[in-house]
């Protein structure tokens, strides 16, 4: 099984207070420590489990600045076989469309025969949750989002459970496919000392826009139709309603409220 995992490097939450917004709406995050987007570790863990069960390879792709290199080493220490950093000045300022195009180009070039692409469900910094589905579209494969269980069935199928509002879906997905995953999926492993030492002998390959044959107009800021117009903190509105009457009445009234059934499940 050939599995590609998309991993985004995001600013460490402990340092978010130090992030400033530039006038154009982009983030000033120089000097902020990067971490692997937490749910992307779950994606990687799942890929490693699949490899353990079925053999094959696990390859990690990340688009980002050179400072991501060190964190990619962590993905190798967890057990990935190869890592590609898609990095070029032209890629800066990308929206989800430009990001997913670059990732698609990287996967097509280095892993044309992939069986499965795993993404996190959303990043913790911008969190659009769009990169996975868009990447699937560029690669021309089916996709599912928010998976919390994946098993590899017979006849080249994945059996996937995905989160739904009052339960879950079970879907069979033919490979090749893309799945975005949630943190409930598994518990990411902690690299052992042996893994750490071994990771230092693995290579991380940097691919530029020239390597990927992506014109400047289709990547980064230029290739991004999304323009950030305004940034603001949404006002926090808390809706408090005090229910009255007997306990029984109040409970019944409570259960009639939309959404409550799911919460009390």
């Amino acid at each position: 099984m050939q599995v590609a995992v998309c991993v985004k490097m995001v600013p460490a939450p402990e340092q978010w207070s130090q992030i400033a917004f530039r006038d154009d709406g982009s983030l000033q995050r120089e000097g902020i420590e990067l971490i692997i987007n937490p749910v992307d570790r779950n994606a990687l863990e799942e890929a490693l489990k699949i490899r353990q069960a079925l053999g094959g390879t696990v390859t990690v792709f990340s688009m980002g600045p050179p400072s991501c290199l060190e964190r990619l080493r962590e993905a190798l220490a967890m057990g990935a076989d190869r890592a590609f950093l898609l990095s070029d000045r032209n890629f800066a300022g990308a929206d989800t469309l430009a990001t997913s195009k670059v990732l698609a180009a990287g996967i097509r070039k280095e892993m044309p025969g992939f069986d499965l692409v795993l993404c996190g469900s959303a990043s913790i910094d911008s969190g659009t949750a769009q990169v996975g589905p868009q990447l699937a579209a560029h690669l021309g494969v089916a996709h599912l989002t928010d998976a919390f269980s994946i098993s590899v069935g017979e006849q080249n199928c994945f059996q996937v459970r995905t989160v739904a509002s009052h339960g879950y879906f079970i879907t069979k997905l033919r490979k090749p496919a893309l799945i975005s995953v949630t943190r409930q999926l598994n518990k990411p492993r902690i690299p052992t000392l042996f893994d750490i030492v071994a990771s230092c002998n693995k290579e991380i390959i940097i691919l530029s826009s020239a390597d990927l044959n992506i014109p400047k107009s289709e990547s980064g800021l230029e290739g991004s139709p999304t323009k950030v117009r305004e940034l603001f903190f949404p006002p926090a509105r808390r809706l408090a309603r005090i229910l009255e009457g007997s306990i029984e009445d109040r409970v019944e009234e409570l259960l009639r409220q939309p959404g409550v059934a799911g919460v009390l499940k």
Partner: protein
Amino acid sequence: MDFQPTIQQDLLRKAVRQFAEDEIAPLVNEMEINDDTPLDLVRKMGDQGFMGVTIPAEYGGTGMGHLARMIMIEEVGRISAGMAMALQVMQMGAGMVIDSGSAAQKAKYFPSLAQGKILVAPAITESSGGSDLEGLSTRAVDEGEYYSLNGRKVFITNSHISELAVIIAKNEGGAKRDFSAFLIENGTEGFRRGRVERKIGFHGCITGELIMENCRIPKENLFGDKGRGLAVALKGINDYGRMGMVGIALGLMQASLEAAVKFARERVLYGKPISNLAPIQFKIAEIYADLESSRLLAYYAAWLIDQNKKSDTQVSSAKFFSAEAALQCTRKAMDIYGAYGCMKDYPLERYCRDAQLLVPADGTNDVMRIIAGRNLAMKR
């Protein structure tokens, strides 16, 4: 001079920190109450490769070295000083077998020792006083086909969970400093475990007695050359034991700093967080300065050991300096917490109790000053 950690050291710190937070932290309460070493956790640390951090790859370790080990103990000590103590002595035992064991002994006990599947307890101290090595009274008699040992070792870390012990004993009839070291396997005739101590801190780390009564030790279990017992012990104590205490001190100071900053930002008095008050800021600055100066000395001493350079002045200085710094830092952090600091719901009182154990263990701070002072002041 480059203060940038290597990629390996950086990955190591992250991995150990995560392990400590995920796997050790949930057990701390239980360890405080039961004062038992969770063997499941020991096995997990073994699987992660923790006991083999200084052991060469050909013996089943990773050979990452003493600076890496320092970082590891610091990170474990940040969560549990008790577990850091147990771990550091496990590493010391395995390291001593690499440094002083015979080829046959290494072949017999590795890679299991590097994997933490068997543990060695180094046992030097007796009730006659740990500082006075010449006063040790355990006796070894060469009986021709075997050695016969009699004596009682006290304050031995991991005494009741180790499969092996390195025992330092006086050669019967020998000169004042004529000691030998012996490897004793559990189950050897005449060898048994004695009482378990009840310590004020390092809960989760067992300290107890090992007793030899006409204990018959096969000749091949002589550990290091005959008559070299003190040298064998002192190398282990310097490179591993004392450096381990330094690592625990760093962990306690790091934990104190984090706890102090957190509380100072959250505790509101006079309408503002107390982090606005200069005396609180002073204490935090002092904790930081103590931590970072201890850390620099610690890393330098560890680097010297990794370079195979003479290190006893630096190691001894790091030991007493960081132990005393940890005592002060844990106290200052507790002070910042006011009454909360004295409550068992917060870890501050635990940090203080743990810090006191840094003073005697692996050579008292007075003895550390004597070693460093003698090296520095006297002509050699």
